[in-house]
């Protein structure tokens, strides 16, 4: 069950989280002792935790807004893209969430998506115009379900705090190496006695080692959490949609695209469904990647033919990876509800040709720029520009009058 899974999920991440915390404390202590040998160590810890606290506070209260602003996402209503709105609502119902996440569209032709929001109550899902143009309904549903799973599993919360810890460690290491460059700690060295000098040298060596290795270690831990959560979100997504092929072929299409997402950067990259910075998804599992190899994610999804609960995903994961590992916590595996796969949608409006994809993306961009679209009974689509003043418009084909509410 979802709620037990969230608990177990939290417990598992907490080990890696504690590891990062200890690293932060160690770095704080060492750097502190280096600058002030007497009791600077504890001052250093205090500073390190303060830095982490402040960074976390800022991203806790404003992180969502910053992320959405940086990525150039625009909040949309149902009329802009009814299918996207419907699919989000379907997934909200499937997850039995009381609050509908806000929906954002990024005006970019590269297909990608991300979710944000510390709490489910003020969460948001952002997708690019390119994603809406390329994917059919089932695939879009898979992507939205994956993002919804990040929201339900509280991944944003964990990734925010872990990310800020990584930020604090990197920042401290940076400041330390720079101060060393300009001879920051040297004046304390001359004051101390021979015995103190020896200890000072040990601390110096340790501090330099930590300044170099600390950020790398923190990054590896951070990426370990991130990758695991991508798998978990895939597992939850499949359980919600009951259709693993939808997400699988969506991942194929997104990773197959050779367009670049202009607004993504190193900091925001782990938030997206597929790493927007790495092209063609890496073939080998790599400790320095934020996302699991895309081919593996697809293979796991494709081999789920028995059912779609968590145990089925774990089995598929074991088969593809060729090893048994506790990806899904025990409480998730005892999920006895046997959920069978569903068929694909009968009526698929998929856009086969490039021209259709371009028209779809173009229409979407017009809608984002406040064009009004009216579907006439005779079957044609009227596109009304935002500066159209009249209260009604007649259909050029059949002459029906449509009211325009400004």
């Amino acid at each position, binding site marked *: *069950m979802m709620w037990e899974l969230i608990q177990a999920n939290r417990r598992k991440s907490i080990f890696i989280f504690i590891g990062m915390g200890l690293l932060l404390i160690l770095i704080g202590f060492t750097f502190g002792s280096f600058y002030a040998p007497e009791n600077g160590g504890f001052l250093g810890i205090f500073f390190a935790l303060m830095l982490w606290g402040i960074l976390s506070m800022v991203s806790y209260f404003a992180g969502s807004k910053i992320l959405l602003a940086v990525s150039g996402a625009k909040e949309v209503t149902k009329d802009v893209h009814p299918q996207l709105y*419907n699919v989000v*609502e*379907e997934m909200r*119902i*499937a997850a*039995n969430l009381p609050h509908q996440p806000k929906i954002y569209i990024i005006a970019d032709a590269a297909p990608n998506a991300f979710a944000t929001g510390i709490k489910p109550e003020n969460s948001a899902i952002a997708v690019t115009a390119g994603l809406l143009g390329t994917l059919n309904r089932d695939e879009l549903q898979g992507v939205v379900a994956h993002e919804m799973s990040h929201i339900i599993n509280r991944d944003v919360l964990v990734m925010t705090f872990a990310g800020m810890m990584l930020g604090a460690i990197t920042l401290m290491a940076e400041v330390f190496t720079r101060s060393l460059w300009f001879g920051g700690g040297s004046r304390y060295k001359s004051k101390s006695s021979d015995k103190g000098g020896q200890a000072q040298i040990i601390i110096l060596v340790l501090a330099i080692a930590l300044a170099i290795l600390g950020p790398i270690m923190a990054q590896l831990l951070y990426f370990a959490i991130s990758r695991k959560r991508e798998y978990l979100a895939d597992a939850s997504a499949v359980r919600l949609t009951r259709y693993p092929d939808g997400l699988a072929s969506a991942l194929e299409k997104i990773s197959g695209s050779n367009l670049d997402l202009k607004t993504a950067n190193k900091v925001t990259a782990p938030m997206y469904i597929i790493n927007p910075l790495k092209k063609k998804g890496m073939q080998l599992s790599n400790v320095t990647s934020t996302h699991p190899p895309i081919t593996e994610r697809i293979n796991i999804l494709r081999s789920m033919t028995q059912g779609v609960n968590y145990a089925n995903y774990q089995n598929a994961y074991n088969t593809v990876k060729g090893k048994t590992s506790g990806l899904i916590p025990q409480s998730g595996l005892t999920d006895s509800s046997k959920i069978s796969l569903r068929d694909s949608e009968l*009526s698929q409006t998929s856009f086969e040709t490039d021209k259709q994809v371009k028209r779809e993306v173009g229409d979407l961009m017009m809608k984002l720029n406040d064009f009004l679209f009216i*579907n006439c009974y005779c079957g044609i689509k009227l596109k009304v520009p935002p500066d159209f003043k009249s209260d009604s418009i007649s259909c050029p084909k059949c002459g029906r009058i449509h009211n325009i509410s400004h």
Partner: protein
Amino acid sequence: MTFFIVFIVIVVVIGFFFVSIYNSLVGLRNRVKNAWSQIDVQLKRRHDLIPNLIETVKGYMTHERQVMENITKYRSQAMDAGTVGEKAAAEGLLSGALGQLRVQVENYPDLKANQNFLALQEELTSTENKISFARQAYNDQVLFFNNKIQMFPSNIVAGMFSFKEEEFFEIEDQTEKAVPKVSFS
């Protein structure tokens, strides 16, 4: 005196424990109710969509009068249904008739190009999906709630305040489940 204080503390702790279990049970029961009401909301939404659908389709589908008559008939049956059983039966028939319509649409390329119809079709597809997702979510909630009622220690509280196990929403049409999945890809 010490004994008395220890006794009070134990009673208070147990009291808090009971209250928190009771509250979580009430919360879960409300989630079950909420999940149930979601199904109702979506069924109503489907009824609202049908007149619009018929209006759009009737100009094109001149040869499928029977299908459209069935849709209208089952819709009014479902809306007038008194008992849950009647309602479930009518909704099942309505789903079947709408499915037939969808198959027939494939023969009318003009209709498939009609933007208004496409918009309606999206709404209908989504509503059908929402109905089945709402059922799935309801069953999930019921399973979770029933587990809580049966398991120690919440079963004690559940027994004291007579929390009843909820029923699962089974798919009425058993043949629908029995059909083997065929894939042409």
